[in-house]
């Protein structure tokens, strides 16, 4: 009787951790399984029978793929803008000492330390007061705003850990400031910038609360899912959800493999 108990106690952390992982993965499993369902009613909440129909015709639902492509466009543009603006801020914050630095620091920190709904509502107050038409542009503006802080945080972490002597060495070898930046600084900072960009793409693509307030009649993919929760969820939503999960896992795994190979190629 003692051995199973000791074994349990030894592996308590592993068991609890894997339990949490199961809790985290369970909805994804359900989404995947129910993408092969053939529901009878409007709602895809109960298992009926196996069917490949939704996978054969993922865009068979009116407006869904349109909302998907809109979300991808918004995520792409806001990622580009937020990454450019955020990287510049991160470099300024790490590399320079200037007046108003702590004020800038808290201005960047605040959007992350505030419930999303407060920002969503205040942006709506601005747009309403100024009489700005809600739609694509207001969504884009909002997404750039909240992605910015996360990019700054990600890039800052990387730039902070950079060895400034590498850039000094480049300058000693008569590289100009532009050359130093492009050939030395940027490649070293790239993983941080990539992490920030990936994070802001995911945040923008998945954002619901801020978009819900500032989209007007424009329907992004999360808005489409939200609406379908009331009207009846088509199976195709599960197909998209499954595809997103698989693509995300593949992208991250490939990224890590490339990273590992680089690490191996570099002699220490």
């Amino acid at each position, binding site marked *: 009787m003692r051995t199973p108990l000791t074994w349990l106690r030894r592996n*308590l952390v592993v068991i609890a951790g894997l339990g949490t992982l199961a809790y985290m993965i369970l909805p994804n499993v359900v989404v995947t399984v129910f993408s092969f369902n053939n529901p009878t009613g409007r709602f895809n909440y109960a298992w009926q029978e196996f069917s490949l129909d939704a996978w054969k015709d993922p865009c068979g639902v009116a407006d869904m793929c349109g909302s998907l492509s809109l979300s991808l466009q918004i995520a792409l543009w806001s990622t580009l803008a937020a990454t450019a603006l955020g990287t510049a801020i991160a470099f300024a914050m790490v590399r320079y000492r200037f007046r108003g630095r702590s004020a800038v620091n808290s201005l960047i920190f605040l959007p992350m330390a505030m419930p999303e709904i407060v920002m969503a509502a205040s942006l709506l*107050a601005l747009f309403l007061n100024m009489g700005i038409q809600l739609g694509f542009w207001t969504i884009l503006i909002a997404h750039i705003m909240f992605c910015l802080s996360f990019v700054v945080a990600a890039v800052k972490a990387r730039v902070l850990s950079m060895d400034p002597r590498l850039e000094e060495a480049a300058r000693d070898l008569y590289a100009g400031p532009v050359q130093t930046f492009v050939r030395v600084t940027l490649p070293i900072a790239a993983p941080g910038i990539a992490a920030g960009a990936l994070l802001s793409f995911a945040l923008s693509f998945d954002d619901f609360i801020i978009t819900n307030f500032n989209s007007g009649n424009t329907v992004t993919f999360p808005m489409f899912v939200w609406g379908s929760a009331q009207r009846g969820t088509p199976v195709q939503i599960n197909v998209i959800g499954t595809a997103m999960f698989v693509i995300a896992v593949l992208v991250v795994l490939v990224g890590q493999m490339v990273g590992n190979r680089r690490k191996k190629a570099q002699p220490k």
Partner: protein
Amino acid sequence: MTSAATDTAPPQAPASAEPPVHKPSVRKRLIPYWLLLPGILWLLVFFVLPMIYQASTSVQTGSLEEGFQVTWHFRTYWDALTEYYPQFLRSLLYAGTATALCLLLGYPLAYLIAFKAGRWRNLLLVLVIAPFFTSFLIRTLAWKTILADGGPVVAVLNSIGFLDVTSWLGMTEGDRVLATPLAVVCGLTYNFLPFMILPLYSSLERIDTRLHEAAGDLYAHPATVFRKVTFPLSMPGVVSGTLLTFIPASGDYVNAELLGSTDTRMIGNVIQSQYLRILDYPTAAALSFILMAIVLIMVTIYIRRAGTEDLV
């Protein structure tokens, strides 16, 4: 912020027209401001200015037909607070419970990935991050299937007596889970777990494992090692993880809407319906400011207590 804006005011054009031989130091000193300018301007216009507009909205009176006017009607705040304090309390209770559960569930997994995973570490990290990329609304809807009445999960919870405990706590009613506080807390916990696990993992990963060995050599029991060495060293992760979980959870309305009922409405649901359905903008603005104030005050006290400065 203001000093950054005024210091960038000196025009750049003449400096670049002349060769910058005379005052290279001035140009150099301006570089950080030029780097900051676009991003900070964006935040000033689309983050700070909206707050000011919302502040002004909250002291307006009027109606949608006649238009709203700033009348410094501060009573809106008092009325909003007295009418909706149950939703405020509920939000803090649900968000607090979800944060505690996230810490309880997330710590073992973060610990596992940091110290015991070995070559599985990367795979486990991917599995923690991957949900970020799948629409969280789809995953939250999946909980409707999982927690369905009479489904296997509810049946198991019922047979082991779990639901008796939660009903006694007022978290469930009868043998239902959907449309109860338990379902909302379960959804909140699930949605914000990655925000707890990642900071925990990154602070645990930094711990030198030789400290564990040293503690073991000094005859410390594994539990003592955890209590005296590991946990204190992971405090920065605990603090930022709890903040990253509690803050968004307190303003969330998606879980309460999809998994709860009218009895589980949180303050986010109220703000959302005031702004987007009832169109009572002053009350909505006041509610949103009260929420912000509560969160900022709680966070400030918490950070003081926890005593960590490095959050991001």
